[in-house]
């Protein structure tokens, strides 16, 4: 094809050819070199903290003449150590994303019509306060519900607690790690925190139960995980899907979804039977070992094989690997554990397994929180009032161990739908995509109809924004201050500072300012004795010995930590008797099983598959699909399906199908990925894509969100955490439901060579994955 030469290059080449003069301007693309100009660019390098996900890595932003041009990892930051993931790098594109919310707006059309008028901040805030006060006057302050998430979400949570409404909730508990935290607190008296205190780098065996490290990217954790791999760690990857972690693993255990507790109980059985536990730790630091021994007696590997479809000898072999490597066995506690609605008990099982291997405070195991050497000044503000009515979500009473700080989002939605136990008449949604995080999004949508007022604070116009009465656009994390971020559970302790690196691009405001200005209008001025959040941070640090100037300059200040116990040192656990509770009297007293039992899961039924989901390394929740630098990497999810099953249904890779769940809820067309690395009874759909984000231009425009298909969920009676892996789906092509014409069983596991191990033979365990029979007639049904 002929190359057309543009006017610009024409002129340039003309300059050299036509007149013979060398007039080439420097067009070096390198930013370092780009400084060679007549007017040198003003280049600033400003440290801050990332919020493309919630790990909060240290970053350094390069700003040229006021424009953010680059983000890199802050080498001083002990967590991400100078490195930063794809999403962190792409923060640059977030600031300049064309679909951002650019100024405050008040709705003028019907709710959901997408018609607003642009207003001043004063008008938007006055209007919002007026509406919130009207709800308060009519129904009481408790009628105001809040969904908040992220670092600036704390400002909103504080605002509601100052105001006296107990009804705030964040998805980080019930849709994420709540049940894990409760399970670990019941066992150890403390949870694993965020960032989790996992010594992956020094582990000899890394056990991942549904933790897809590598697709789930938290930079510090991946640095340690890959260092661990390089140091020869053997990975046991328990996952119905051949994840990136499974591809690095010595053992991939393609477990039947929902049966993880059975596997863990069998491991405990085997470890106790073989006397492979840490005898000293069990004797000195735990209670309930004899009850545990009796309890797991019947849970043999053979018992578990029938349930999990993992061969008993593989369960024994992997148990032996853990026994041999202890205490350098890193059993990952998981992060998003909201799977089946009995997740506290599974987390408890994992915590018990970790406990008997004695990995607490040990190299290659769980490390310890340290004592932070500084204390911050507290602002001189009144104490928050005690709410007059009980919270509607049941946290702390209906769900006895649910966090009353984070609350239960789905219960707040339910209460708004039913208007019981008392009316909820306004919502503020602050930095959270409630349509993509909370299951049963149709309930969420319907609940909005019961509201007198609905205000959204966000950076991008996601689906929940569409129905807002008022939109308050927030600065990106690169344009604002947030609270100090102090981490005591890491190899080094640190405090890091999020500060604006670039002047705000649009008529947006930081979360702290929005909360403060609303607070003033709600009569809460006493709680906001400042005009600038930088002053708050200065005041907090004034007597701490931490220099604000240094923190601002370096982005992070580190302190030594004591992550590991000395040999022979015992640890005072934060439980009532300072010991690890293998048997939980606390649970017994609340009427729950004191030691975890396996609860059977339903089979999907013919033609149906269990819907499982997970993350992709280049996207965070629903936050990044419209980021052009990330969207170009993965612009839509593929539905993973077992290759043999897919072929038997006449499917081809990348072919589009419609996915329909047990309630008849359908997706738009989704491309499929057929692979032997997927169990035959489940399909996998990556999370974080395409709901119905009409305000976003750069996204798929198709309803291919996993959460759309998660119309059914269960609720953990202990924590209130949701079980989201309880939906069954079938595939529809040309309006016809597809049904596999083969049966595939997957009772096997691959044992592969690990890097660096020279002589180990490839051991292919028994497996059986050939077509068994052809179904004569395709029957529908669940």
């Amino acid at each position, binding site marked *: 094809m002929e*190359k057309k*030469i*543009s006017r*610009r*290059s024409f*002129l340039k*080449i*003309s*300059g050299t*050819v*036509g*007149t013979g003069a060398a007039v*080439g301007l420097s*067009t*070096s*693309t*390198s*930013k*370092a070199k780009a400084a060679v100009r007549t007017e040198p660019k003003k280049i600033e390098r400003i440290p801050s903290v990332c919020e493309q996900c919630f790990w909060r890595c240290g970053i350094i932003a390069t700003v040229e003449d006021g424009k953010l*041009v*680059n*983000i*890199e990892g802050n080498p001083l930051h002990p967590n991400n150590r*100078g*490195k*930063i*993931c*794809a*999403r962190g*790098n*792409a923060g640059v594109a977030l600031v300049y994303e064309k679909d951002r919310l650019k100024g405050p707006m008040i709705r003028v059309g019907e709710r959901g019509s997408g018609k607003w008028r642009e207003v001043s901040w004063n008008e938007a805030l006055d209007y919002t306060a007026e509406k919130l006060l009207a709800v308060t006057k009519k129904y009481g302050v408790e009628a105001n519900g809040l969904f908040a998430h992220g670092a600036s979400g704390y400002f909103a949570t504080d605002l509601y607690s100052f105001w006296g409404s107990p009804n705030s909730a964040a998805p980080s508990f019930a849709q994420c790690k709540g049940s894990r935290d409760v399970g670990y607190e019941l066992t150890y008296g403390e949870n694993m925190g965020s960032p989790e205190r996992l010594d992956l780098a020094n582990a000899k065996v890394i056990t991942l139960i549904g933790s897809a490290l*590598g697709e789930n*990217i938290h*930079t510090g954790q*991946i*640095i340690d*995980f*890959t*260092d661990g791999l*390089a140091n020869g760690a053997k990975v046991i990857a328990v996952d119905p899907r*051949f994840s*990136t972690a*499974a591809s*690095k693993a010595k053992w*991939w255990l393609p477990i039947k979804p929902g049966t993880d507790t059975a596997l863990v109980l069998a491991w405990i059985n085997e470890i106790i039977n073989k006397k492979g536990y840490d005898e000293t730790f069990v004797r000195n630091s735990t209670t309930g070992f004899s009850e545990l021994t009796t309890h797991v007696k019947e849970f043999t590997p053979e018992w578990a094989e029938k349930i999990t479809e993992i061969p008993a000898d593989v369960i024994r072999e992997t148990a032996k690997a853990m026994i041999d490597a202890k205490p350098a066995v890193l059993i990952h506690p998981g992060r998003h554990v909201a799977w089946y609605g009995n997740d506290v008990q599974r987390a408890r099982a994992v915590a018990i397994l970790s406990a008997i291997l004695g990995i607490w405070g040990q190299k290659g195991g769980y490390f310890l929180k340290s004592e932070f050497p500084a204390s911050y000044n507290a602002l001189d503000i009144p104490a928050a009032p005690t709410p007059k009515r009980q919270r509607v979500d049941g946290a702390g009473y209906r769900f006895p161990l649910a966090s009353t700080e984070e609350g239960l989002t789905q219960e707040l939605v339910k209460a708004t739908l039913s208007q019981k136990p008392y009316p909820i008449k306004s919502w503020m949604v602050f930095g959270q995509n409630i349509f993509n995080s909370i299951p049963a999004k149709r309930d969420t949508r319907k609940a909005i109809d019961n509201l007198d007022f609905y205000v959204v604070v966000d950076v991008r116009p996601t689906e929940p924004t569409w129905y807002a009465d008022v939109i308050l656009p927030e600065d990106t994390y690169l344009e604002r201050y947030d609270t100090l971020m102090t981490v005591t559970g890491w190899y080094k302790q640190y405090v890091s500072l999020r500060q604006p690196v670039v002047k705000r691009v649009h008529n947006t405001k930081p979360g702290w300012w929005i909360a403060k200005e609303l607070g003033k209008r709600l009569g809460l001025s006493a709680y906001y004795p400042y005009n600038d959040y930088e002053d708050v941070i200065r005041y907090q640090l004034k007597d701490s010995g931490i220099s604000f100037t240094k923190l601002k300059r370096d982005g992070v200040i580190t302190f030594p930590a004591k992550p590991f116990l000395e040999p022979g040192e015992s640890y005072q656990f934060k439980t009532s008797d300072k010991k690890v509770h293998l048997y939980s009297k606390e649970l017994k007293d609340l009427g729950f099983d004191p030691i975890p039992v396996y609860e059977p899961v339903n089979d999907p039924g013919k033609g149906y598959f269990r819907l499982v989901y997970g993350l992709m390394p*280049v996207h965070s929740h629903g936050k990044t699909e419209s980021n052009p*630098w990330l969207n*170009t*990497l993965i612009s839509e999810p593929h539905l993973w399906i077992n290759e043999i099953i897919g072929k038997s249904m006449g499917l081809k890779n990348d072919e589009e199908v419609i996915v329909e769940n047990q309630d008849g809820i359908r997706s738009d067309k989704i491309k499929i990925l057929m692979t*032997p*690395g997927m169990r035959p009874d489940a399909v996998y759909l990556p999370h974080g894509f395409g709901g119905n984000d009409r305000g976003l231009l750069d996204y798929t425009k198709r309803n291919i969100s996993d959460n759309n298909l998660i119309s059914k969920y269960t609720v953990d009676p202990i924590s209130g955490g949701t079980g989201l892996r309880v939906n069954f789906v079938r595939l529809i092509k040309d309006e016809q439901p597809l049904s596999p014409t083969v049966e595939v069983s997957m009772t*096997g596991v*691959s044992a*592969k*060579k*690990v890097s*660096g191990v020279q002589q180990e033979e490839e051991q*292919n*365990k028994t*497996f059986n994955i050939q077509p068994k029979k052809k179904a004569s007639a395709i029957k529908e049904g669940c």
Partner: protein
Amino acid sequence: MSKYAMVIDMDRCIACHACEVACRSHYDVPVPYYRNWVHDLRPEGVYPDIKKVSYAGLCNHCDDAPCVKACPTGATYKRKDGVVVVDKDLCIGCGLCIEACPYGARYIDPVKEKVDKCDFCIDRVEQGVEPACVATCIASARIFGDIDDPNSKVSQLIASGAQPNVSSKVNVGPNIYYLDSHNHFPVVQAAFPPKIPNMPTPQKMWTKVLRPLFWLAIGGSFLGQLAAFSTQLFKGESDIKE
């Protein structure tokens, strides 16, 4: 003298794509083009022997670089330190180097209308800073260094078995090496074999280079005349010196 090379440790790479985005950010690479890449292959094999492989790649800075030979203006050349670079002032955007590259490492920037590709971040390297993709790699899977120094980490990794992506048909002396103990590299080689360089033919030289240049020369002369005429018009004849 240094000779730069990179080793990609496939055992460590978890296909997070951070390298790709860091590079885009550093060089304003317009979407959907890239100077380096991670191509994710779907998990394949026969259960239970499954492999999930990703191919992290970039310009191979080949010793016998076809792109250098294909470039009609001398814009693409190999530096003494082994780095293949594009002099943007000389590049006419003809694209012949793109066809010659066995690795698909080059693109034409649609705005600048120049060819662009990885230059090993040579500006950073000369200042003692690692390439951007290496600096950001959260798995420490990219190792950059000097293979003329036998003690460098890259030299040691190559000695321990890191392989370049070459085939029996194509071996132009690439300087990107892959370290792998899971038998993943053969999957990459099968899926992304080096292409046989598509070198310029006289026909292509005419349509892509000479003909446009011919018109440019004419246009240039015309413009030169125009400039001289305008100068005359505004400044008067006496200012024009022979």
